[in-house]
């Protein structure tokens, strides 16, 4: 049983209590901060090698946003770790009642390849902050980043409590045979099912950050240029390989005709006439992904120059729901536009499909934005922009249905990796107060018990 030794080693460290004290956790988190500072160039290089990630995107998503989470965690850890005292009822008035944040134990974090540092480190920050021992499994598809993590993290973190495991599907399957106390997985719904089934064998709780097709409704009344720029930014960031990227647009025929030139303009402004040569446009992570995305281009009217040849930012117009590009999450720099008659049709279209990780709606009319929000369901929602709800750490980030279960970011990561333990510390004295609950039972005793335990509706007065 490979990895059994590693897991048991971490479990021993866990049982020794080493990861409990706040000072220890702070020291490990500060070390992680130093990792991000010291290895900044290496991270930018590795992600550039893996998927041609533009410097700014790498800096913004893989370093800056991680540091944000780190700083917010360090700023608030003391507060988050504290026992949370709760309201008491009549019978517990003299007792101490609180929720303790207990670490789970040995947790597993499986990261994806599209934001290989961020999507591994942000959960790791929460897991360490919550006092767990952690095994981290970076994606083998982003090879260079995987190597960097495997080689460097061990120089910064306590090797008895935190380990990096590398490898492909086989290794991950073997790893999942072990018992973990929590599993955090980011990836596709198909693999999410496999992870959850493996977790079920050990009754291990999970958080699954999955994906789907994120719809973007653009209403007729909107500032087309601004909408197009925000849309294009969100779609083509990391060459479309973003779980919350707007996957497709729903709009009227009229709006489509306005959007197309606006999108072309935005793309030209961002990436110049030849995006392949722009340092600010990423690449697909590998051949397999490239071929998969290419195959999606077989229908629809191409609205952008040079779209089909190499993976340049591509906008497809007049796309039909039956087209290949509408059958799977695109995860590439293609933006299909599906024409709908009106907002109601757009909402029905969205609701007929699995619930996505994000829904976007653009309109100058706030009522339209609110209608789309209220009549649909998704992990998260952003009105009049794309991606940005991800950067606000006070918002919980997660999916629903096929797009995932659980949430994180900011305090939610800490909570995800903590067991909220209800504790009641009672008084040993005042035993007389307990006597109504003991047998032999009688109506009279029941009356007393009811009086002390019951919660009454306010404004309802009963005369006993």
């Amino acid at each position, binding site marked *: 049983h490979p990895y059994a030794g590693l897991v048991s080693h971490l479990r021993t460290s866990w049982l020794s209590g080493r990861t409990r004290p706040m000072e220890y956790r702070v020291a490990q988190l500060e070390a992680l901060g130093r990792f991000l500072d010291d290895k900044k160039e290496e991270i930018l290089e590795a992600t550039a090698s893996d998927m041609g990630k533009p410097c700014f995107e790498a800096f913004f998503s893989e370093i800056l946003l991680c540091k944000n989470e780190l700083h917010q965690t360090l700023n608030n850890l003391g507060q988050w770790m504290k026992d949370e005292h709760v309201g008491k009822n009549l019978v517990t008035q003299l007792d101490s009642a609180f929720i303790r944040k207990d670490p789970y134990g040995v947790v597993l974090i499986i990261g994806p390849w599209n934001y290989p540092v961020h999507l591994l480190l942000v959960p790791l920050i929460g897991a360490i902050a919550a006092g767990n021992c952690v095994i981290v499994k970076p994606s083998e598809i982003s090879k260079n980043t995987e190597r960097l993590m495997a080689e460097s993290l061990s120089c910064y973190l306590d090797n008895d409590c935190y380990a990096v495991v590398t490898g492909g599907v086989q290794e991950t399957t073997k790893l999942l045979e072990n018992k973990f106390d929590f599993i955090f997985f980011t990836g596709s719904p198909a693999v999410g099912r496999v992870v959850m089934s493996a977790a079920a064998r050990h009754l291990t709780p999970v958080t699954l950050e999955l994906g789907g097709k994120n719809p973007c409704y653009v209403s007729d009344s909107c500032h087309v240029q*601004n909408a197009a720029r925000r849309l294009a*930014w969100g779609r083509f960031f990391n060459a479309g390989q973003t779980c919350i990227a707007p996957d497709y647009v729903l709009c009227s025929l009229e709006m489509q005709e306005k959007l197309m030139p606006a999108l072309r303009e935005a793309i030209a402004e961002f990436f110049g006439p030849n995006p392949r040569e722009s340092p600010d446009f990423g690449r697909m992570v590998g051949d397999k992904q490239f071929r998969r995305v290419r195959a999606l281009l077989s229908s629809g009217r191409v609205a952008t120059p040079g779209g089909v040849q190499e993976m340049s930012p591509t906008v497809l117009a007049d796309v039909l729901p039956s087209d290949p590009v509408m059958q799977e999450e695109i995860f590439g720099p293609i933006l299909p536009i599906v024409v709908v008659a009106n907002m109601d049709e757009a909402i029905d279209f969205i609701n007929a499909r699995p619930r996505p990780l994000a829904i976007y709606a653009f309109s100058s009319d706030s009522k339209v934005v609110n209608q789309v929000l209220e009549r649909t369901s998704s992990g998260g929602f952003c009105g009049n922009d794309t991606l940005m709800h991800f950067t606000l750490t006070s918002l919980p980030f997660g999916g629903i249905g096929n797009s995932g279960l659980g949430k994180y970011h900011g305090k939610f990561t800490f909570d995800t990796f903590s067991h909220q333990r209800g504790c009641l510390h009672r008084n040993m004295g005042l035993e007389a107060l307990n006597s109504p609950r003991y047998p032999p039972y009688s109506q009279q005793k029941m009356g007393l018990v009811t009086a002390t335990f019951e919660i009454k509706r306010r404004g309802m007065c009963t005369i006993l």
Partner: protein
Amino acid sequence: MERIQQVVGRARAAFKAGRCRSLEFRIQQLKALERMVKEKEREILAAIKADLHKCGPNAYSHEIMGLLGELALTMEKLSSWAAPQPVKRNLMTMRDEAFIRYEPLGVVLIIGAWNYPFTLIMQPLVGAIAAGNAVVVKPSEISENTAKLIADILPQYLDQELYPVVTGGVPETTELLKQRFDHILYTGNSAVGKIVMAAAAKHLTPVTLELGGKSPCYIDSDCDLAVACRRITWGKYMNCGQTCIAPDYILCHPSIQSQVVENIKATLQEFYGADVKSSPDYERIINKHHFKRILGLLEGQKIAHGGETDEASCFIAPTILTDVSPESKVMEEEIFGPVLPIVPVKSVEEAIEFINLREKPLALYVFSNKKELIKRVISETSSGGFTGNDVIMHFFLSTLPFGGVGNSGMGAYHGKHSFETFSHRRSCLIKDLKMEGTNNLRYPPISQKKVDWAKFFILKRFNKGQIGLALLALLGIVAAVVWKNHHSVLKRKALLIVLAVQRLGWPNVW
């Protein structure tokens, strides 16, 4: 079996039609549920009595009283729980609306257990209805009278399509688990818990599993033994030991073992009289299968008290075992019966080690006059919940999340925690379609200047102090007034102004 598919399908259609979205509808259904509990009280108590030989007052306080409290609390608080929750914004999102919306998950499945057959279905149901879901209810077939009653009366009070009851045994439950749900709450044992979670995994359905385990009870030598033993006796033998959070076994120093036994014996006498079998307040084992199982645990044990049984009525007397070996059968599985083993340990360290070598339990109990000792046990162990100097009671405080960890379960409910368990917290950020200026910073082509701006606007500082909010507010007002009066000029000079402020050492905002 098609019937089950149809029932779930109808519930989903009813949910999609939006009937249970409005708060008014949900409260109306909760009110109807409350009426049902009050109007059918006699029938409910009779069914519980038939299933578990539980007397009226006992059944009332275990299964009805808490439920009525939960209903009252939920109806009172629902509008505040369900309201969108605004969240703290950062500099980039200052002008935007950022909030968390509580939304229903969809169609929820609640699978009940037989030991508290009414409340373990109803309490989760309250939360699920409150959160706006459709709910399929599956009471345990083992407590058949209560299952039949629930199937009878629930449709008389609640919307029949949105909240159907499915009865049956293993085949029906298996068929149910093949359907797609948006959340499953299961109360029962760990073995079936794994099956439920595996079935849920196929549909990526989140689960709340309220399982069990052996809940240890450590008695420190420094404590009021008489009081401790009374409380333990109450919690252990209620419902004939068939309580998921009953103190399963005792850990204590060998020198106080006989005192513990004497105290418990005296309390048993006080509670049930000399002839326990004829006490109306003592329940029975649910069926022959469990009766035989518990009997098997007594083999080879030193019975310090009790041990009498009567198979015909599934009666097992309150029993205490002493000097129990950790390797014996009675220490391997959750007892779920009126048998209390005492395992001697020499110290609290030994007790903690003993507990930590085993699966994490649903509840943990410690009796001691020493506050520090209690704190120590809490911090060096893990369990679903904890009560110090008493047993069971953390269950009754709805502000505490009730659930397990590890083998004893995942997720929690009660009070507001039920509402949150059955809701989806959806993050919402609503921006202005205008004000494109600030967005320019993030668009390609990228320059060093843009990188610097990004750091300025987004990077949180590691700060140990707080900035005076008043200062910030004042600056905000000044800025707004200046903007209003001079915006055309300012628009042109905006970059310069902000740069100037930065040079002046803009204080850390976070």
